[in-house]
Every structure is written in C-alpha cells, then in structure tokens.
C-alpha cells in the first residue's frame, strides 16, 4: 500500500508545553485511520499540522509526498478538514455554508449542487437548509461541519471527533458516509476519544497519550497486545495498601494486573476457571470483594493496559 501521510519525529511546543513528542506514523492510501486518545493527548494538534493550520516545532510531515512546511498550499489542495468545533459564519444558512465551502474547494455547477443535495438528504439536513447556522443545535452544527468535507471529497479527509454531540442515528449515517468516501478512494483520518467509533469505523488505529503514540495497528491486533485472553475486573470494598497489594500478588501468583483505587484488573487465561480461585485467595487474606466481571478486551482495556488510565 502507498503511504498517504508520513510523519517522522514530529514534535510541537506551545510555549514551554510539549504537545507532541517525536511522533512517528504512517497512514496508507485508502484506509480509515483513527487517532484514539483522551482530551489533550495531541490528536487535534497532529491533525492541524497535517492540514498546515499550525506549524511543527520539529520533525517532518509529508502528505501525498508533499512537505507540509515547504509547500503548504499544495498540501491543502489535497486535504479537507472537519473541525471539532463547527466553523461557520453566524449569519449564514446551512446551504450558504455548504455551497461556499464547495466553491472555495473548487467544486461548481451541477456536481456541487448534486453533492450538497445527496449529503444533506443522508444526514437529515435537508429540512434545515434555509435555517441560520447559529440557530442549529450542537448535533446539527456538527453534521454541517462533517457535511462540508463529505461534499468536498478530498484525497485526504480529516475528521476531528466527527460524531461528538450527534445522536445514534446520526452517528451511523456519518459513519456510513465516511466509509463511502473511503470506498470512493479518499484516505480518512479520524481523531476520536470514542472507542466504539474507533472500533466500528477504523481500519487501523493509533493510541495517543501525552503526545506519544503508544501503540498502533488494526483493532484486533491492538486487543491481541494484551497478554492472556480474558480480563477480570474486580471492584473491592475499599482501597488496598501497597503492602496488601504485595501480599495479594504473592498469594494469587498473578503479576499481570493493574490496580487503580478500589478496582483491580487481572489479565488472565481461562477467566471463568480462575475467578473462584482468585476470590477465595483474596478472601483468605482479608480483601473483601464487592463485584466481579469477566470480559473480552476492548480498546479501552488496551488503552488502560498501556497507560493505566481509562478513556471513559
């Protein structure tokens, strides 16, 4: 597969704060690539650098083989950017916003009008076409923001949290249209903190935390990074002391776990068989269990496994 976006040792400082730390990443043509991470992880900064809206502090970024710092205009001609916060003039109607965006991106005539009609119909925006943007709800504004890029059909389509504030039906409509855009040949890059969105939509995912890519791969590959097949979540009645944790490890003999507050997560094989044994051993050393759950790993578990934090 051909590389659409090549990021090498990318760093970005805002004053003394380092938002990105030597990020290296390849995104391939024709894939839906997800940047998954919590707020402030560096997702939007990465995307804004790709779109040449902000400049990198160091490192190289190429979009379709074009350097973002040397030829930013050429890069922008290949890119469409759907912002996290919808962007439109207060006094414009929905149709004004979409028509102007299409025109400035080089579309015109029947092609533009047909794209607008189709996307508005698919996103349920048709009945709001004459309504002023500033009078729309948050979810509708977000749909308009996404619609701009779906109408534009750029070679590289960037969506920053495309379904934030959008209802479930709207989410599915947006996901379907993004998949269609990919099938028509666009490369899609999505930033999200919604693991369900990442899992449902993305061909490959990079998990980003504190400006660093922690792990990347297909969703299934990421889940396979968690050693052992099952996740056993145990909620205790109280927090454990360090000494009690040490005692528990010694007694149970499982060192692959994470403890945060009153929650302990064990990464184990044959979870159902192991659960009663673990419960009994914990009881024997006086650790009271409130609730237990065995589950398949999710992307949130992957994130937790690598960072010790949850996305939720």
């Amino acid at each position, binding site marked *: 597969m051909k590389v659409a976006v090549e990021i090498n040792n990318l760093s970005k400082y805002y004053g003394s704060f380092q938002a990105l730390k030597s990020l290296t990443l390849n995104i391939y043509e024709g894939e839906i690539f997800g940047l998954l991470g919590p707020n402030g992880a560096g997702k939007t900064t990465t995307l*804004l650098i790709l779109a040449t*809206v*902000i*400049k990198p502090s160091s490192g190289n970024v190429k979009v379709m083989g074009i350097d973002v710092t040397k030829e930013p205009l050429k890069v922008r001609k290949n890119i469409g*950017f759907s*912002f996290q916060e919808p*962007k439109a003039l207060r*006094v414009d109607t929905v149709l004004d916003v979409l028509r102007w965006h299409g025109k*400035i*991106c080089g579309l015109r005539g029947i092609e533009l009008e047909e794209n607008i009609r189709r996307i508005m119909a698919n996103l349920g925006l048709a009945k709001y076409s004459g309504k002023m943007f500033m009078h729309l709800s948050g979810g509708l504004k977000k749909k308009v923001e996404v619609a701009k890029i779906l109408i534009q059909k750029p070679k590289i389509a960037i969506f920053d949290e495309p379904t934030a504030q959008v209802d479930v039906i709207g989410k599915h409509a947006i996901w379907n249209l993004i998949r269609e855009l990919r099938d028509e040949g666009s490369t899609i890059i999505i930033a999200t903190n919604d693991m369900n969105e990442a899992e449902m939509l993305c061909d490959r995912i990079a998990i980003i935390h504190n400006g660093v890519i922690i792990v990347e791969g297909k969703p299934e590959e990421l889940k396979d990074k968690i050693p052992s097949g099952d996740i056993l979540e145990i909620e205790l009645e109280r927090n454990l002391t360090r000494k009690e944790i040490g005692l528990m490890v010694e007694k149970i003999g499982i060192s692959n776990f994470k403890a945060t507050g009153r929650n302990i997560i064990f990464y184990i094989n044959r979870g159902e068989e192991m659960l009663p044994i673990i419960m009994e051993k914990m009881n024997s050393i006086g650790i009271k269990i409130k609730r237990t759950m065995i589950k398949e790993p999710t992307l949130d578990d992957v994130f937790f496994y690598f960072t010790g934090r949850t996305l939720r």
Partner: protein
Amino acid sequence: MRNILLIISRDLSKLIKEKFFLVMRYISTLIQIFVYGVIISKIITFKNFYNYYLVGIYVILVFYVALNAGYDVLDEIRMGMLEYYLSLPISRGEYIVAKSISGGVLSTVYSIPILALILLLSNAFSPLKIIEILTLTFIFALSMSGIIIIISLQIKSPNISDIIYGVLVTLLLKLSTVYYPTAVMPSFYKYPALINPVSHITDLLRYIILGEGSYSIPPEIAFPAILFLAMASITFTTIIMERKVEGR
C-alpha cells in the same frame, strides 16, 4: 482570483445580512449631518463650515465601515474561523488580500447613499466626482482594513485588541482634519494631524468636492500618501500572514 472574489462576495453578503449594523450606522450618520452638523455650523462661523463638516462626516463613515471590515478578522479569530480559512486550499496571501479588498469594497458600496446625499447638500453632484471619490474611498478603506487586520493578527487577544482599536480610532479621528482645519490647531497637534492618513483622505475629498482653499494638505501630497499607505498595508499584511500566523 476566483478565491479572492469568493471571499469578497461572502463578506459582502454578510454585510447585507447584518441589517441592524447597516441601519444603525446610517441613522448615526444622518443625525451627524442633520442635527449636530446643522447646529455646530451655526456656532462655528468660518467660511461654509457645514460643507466642510459634511466631507468629514463622509470620511468618518468610510473609516468606521473599513475598520469594522478589518475588525471582522479579529471576530473570525474569536469564532475560530481563522483556523477554518487556513485549512482551505487558498494561500494565506490570497486570504489576507481578499479580506483587505473586502474592507475597501464594503466601505465603498456602503458609503454610496451618504456620498450622494453629501454631494447634493454641497451642490457638488457630478458623475466624474463620484467616480473619483469612490476610487479614493476604496483605496483608503483598503488601507484602514489592512491596518486593523495587522493589529488583529499580531495581538489576537480580543481584550487587548479592543483597547488598541479604541485608542487608535480616537487618535486617528481627533488628531486629523476631519472636524477642524490645521490652521486652528496648536502646533504640537498640527504635525501629527498632517501625517495622519485620515487627514490626507479628508483633505483630498475636500479638494474634489469643495475646491481650492478647503484643505490643509495639498492634493499632490495627499494622493501619493494614500496610495503609498494602501500598498504598504497590503504588503505588510501579506508578509505577516505568510510568515507568522498560525491558526491558534
């Protein structure tokens, strides 16, 4: 060129949609002409002060609309629109030139009814004068929009920009020949007024509308000064935009 026209047409349609701003600015100007102008010209008795004042009022109107158009960039920074423009397939130079020209076009279009009224009241209505005045209005307004855009891009902080904007407007209007000729100014006010671009445009328009003897700065100085300011403003805004600006 197509992109520049698209940005200008969008700004123009935005101005038309902002009817409240349009109507209020016209009402304010009409009050200046028919209430304040009439009364003050009875107090100040030097030769035909009312006509002298009318030209000043026209310049004030153009000045405010041009500043408002330039200020629009700051407003767009506040609304996060600058990021959006910077992500579009247009060069930053094109964007900033378009915004400056927008300021010129909006001010010129907006000022036409008041210009017609002023020419009628001054008994100076002629198609040639209208063309000359509108051309100069466009060049001056473009410069003023550019200056405000430079301030907006450099400072970005809305509060600080508001303060600078307020001081700049007061300085440029009060230390100019908009309201009074340099002949009545103390010498330490006279010199700033003579280099003030607002004085240059006002006196140039007075020369066209009222003729000889109505101006403090001769047209052969005022006209090149206005042209120079326009070119400098466009050049500086483009350089600043291309080199410095980031979307956030």
